[in-house]
């Protein structure tokens, strides 16, 4: 077995991505079709449909409780949809096909004294489902090193995972998720708790994976702005429903007002998008408040 990390992550991208044909011709890696989800007698998602393709960076935008995590759990098969279906590579998702999804959960709590180094966690991304003890092999070690280098975490390799900072852990978790060579990488709010710079670095890393290595990246965030430059597609969640398309198609007053079920305005303030309640965009007070909120 020669260098699994490199083979799966880097080489595939080149062969399945013919130059000059960007976008349309690519296969749908993930599609949701009319997915409804009920949790504890409440309808959390209703009629959610969208599709994403290889090499696309898709942002899933929604405020707290909008259903981002729930949607991901349905894709992963950890929660059942009451109707509708999830398609992976055009076929109904199965336990086996779901194994090829890379996932970075929203909350991963790791105690500082865990006897596990970053490289051990990344290694488990390759073969956690295998039985038996992992024998140290050159190939495995190289694959882990290469992956850590790829996410810029070489210097963290021997640190205990529980002692990593938020941004460092995020990189290691991304490396863990990428080890199996997934064609679909799902990240649940990876930018939460990160400062602006680490956030940007993570976004650039993910954009590189999507555009450079043909991975379909699906990433949740509550703020759309850090993703504007790199996003190919947006899935906007509100009130349990979803609208998807390019940013220009979705982030518009008419589409979002329909989604929210009440009038909203979309403001462009020096390149930053603000979505605020109400259709009266002359409300300067609201605008100021909103700006204050977004600037932290």
């Amino acid at each position, binding site marked *: 077995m020669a260098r699994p990390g490199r083979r799966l992550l880097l080489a595939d991208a080149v062969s399945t991505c013919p130059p000059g044909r960007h976008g349309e011709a690519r296969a749908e890696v993930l599609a949701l079709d009319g997915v409804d989800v009920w949790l504890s007698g409440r309808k959390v998602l209703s009629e959610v449909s969208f599709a994403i393709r290889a090499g696309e960076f898709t942002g899933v935008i929604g405020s707290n409780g909008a259903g981002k995590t729930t949607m991901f759990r349905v894709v992963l098969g950890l929660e059942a949809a009451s109707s509708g279906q999830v398609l992976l590579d055009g076929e109904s998702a199965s336990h086996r096909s779901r194994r090829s999804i890379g996932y970075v959960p929203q909350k991963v709590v790791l105690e500082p004294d*865990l006897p596990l180094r970053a490289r051990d966690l990344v290694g488990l991304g390759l073969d956690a489902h295998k039985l038996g003890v992992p024998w140290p092999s050159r190939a495995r070690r190289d694959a882990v090193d290469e992956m850590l280098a790829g996410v810029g975490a070489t210097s963290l390799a021997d640190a205990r995972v529980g002692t990593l900072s938020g941004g460092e852990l995020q990189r290691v978790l991304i490396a863990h998720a990428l080890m199996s060579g997934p064609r679909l990488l799902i990240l649940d709010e990876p930018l939460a708790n990160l400062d602006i710079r680490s956030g940007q670095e993570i976004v650039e890393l993910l954009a590189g994976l999507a555009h450079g290595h043909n991975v379909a990246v699906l990433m949740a965030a509550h703020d759309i702005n850090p993703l504007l430059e790199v996003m190919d597609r947006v899935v906007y969640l509100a009130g349990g429903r979803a609208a998807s398309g390019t940013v220009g198609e979705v982030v518009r007053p008419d589409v979002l007002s329909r989604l929210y079920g009440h009038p909203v305005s979309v403001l462009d303030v020096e390149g930053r998008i603000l979505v605020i309640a109400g259709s009266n965009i002359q409300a300067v007070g609201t605008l100021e408040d909103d700006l204050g909120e977004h600037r932290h």
Partner: protein
Amino acid sequence: MRALFEPGFFASTPVRTALVVGAIVALASGVIGVLTVIRSQSFSGHALGDVGTVGGSAAFLANVSPLWGFLGIAVLASGTMELFGVERRRGRDVATGVVLGAALGLSALLLYFDTTSTSTSGAAVTILFGSLFTVSSDLLPALAGLGGGVLGAVLVMYRPLLLSSVSSELAAANGLPVRFLGVAFLVMTGIGVSLSALAVGTILSTALLIGPAAAALRLTRRPGRAMLAAGASGLAATWLGILLAYDSFYWPPARKGWPVSFFVVALVLVFYVGSGSLSSARSRRARGTT
């Protein structure tokens, strides 16, 4: 050397049996203990040890080895704890507490029957505090099978168990059967704790399960090494404990030997404290050089 190894140490059958039993128990406990600490399930482990008292005292009444009582009750209790919901941390603690309370109440009654039926306090002491020297050599095959079974199961499921112990979210995302692994691990803990209850008694069984593991986790950042270190230090504690207990035969006040469980648990504590000084000395050195 002569003074340390009293004449006849290796010639005595109870000593030889004790050494073998101690080794099996220490290795199984070390491996299970590391995972128990990683999963923050020390309380469940402790409870499984304590509930063993019910089984042990019942087994005594039925005139079979307490081992079978420990095992039966530990497997039953782990199943019950799972039914009550072990996967959520709070649910797990509550479930554990409920099962533990009920079992200890019952043990009080059974131990009372034990002591009245034999009119000595020997049963209670053996069950609660154990004695490696009283383990019958007839049990050796069963013990080896159980200990080997637990070790084998951990080795086979090493990676899935490790990841699900570190983070159930990550394990679920990797498509691992988190719930099955949780139950399987609880049953393995039950077996491990029963073995150590046989060696050092139900009350002290957690000391052998958690102590060496906790010491090992301070010294290494690798899970496999932590298991090896925990097994090795548990082994050192039991063997040295047996040796000291054998020597203590000539010690005051009674000239009939101090309890081996005392030595084992005391040595576990010494190793734990020692590992603390070792790791802080090490980090001081690391800070000094960089």
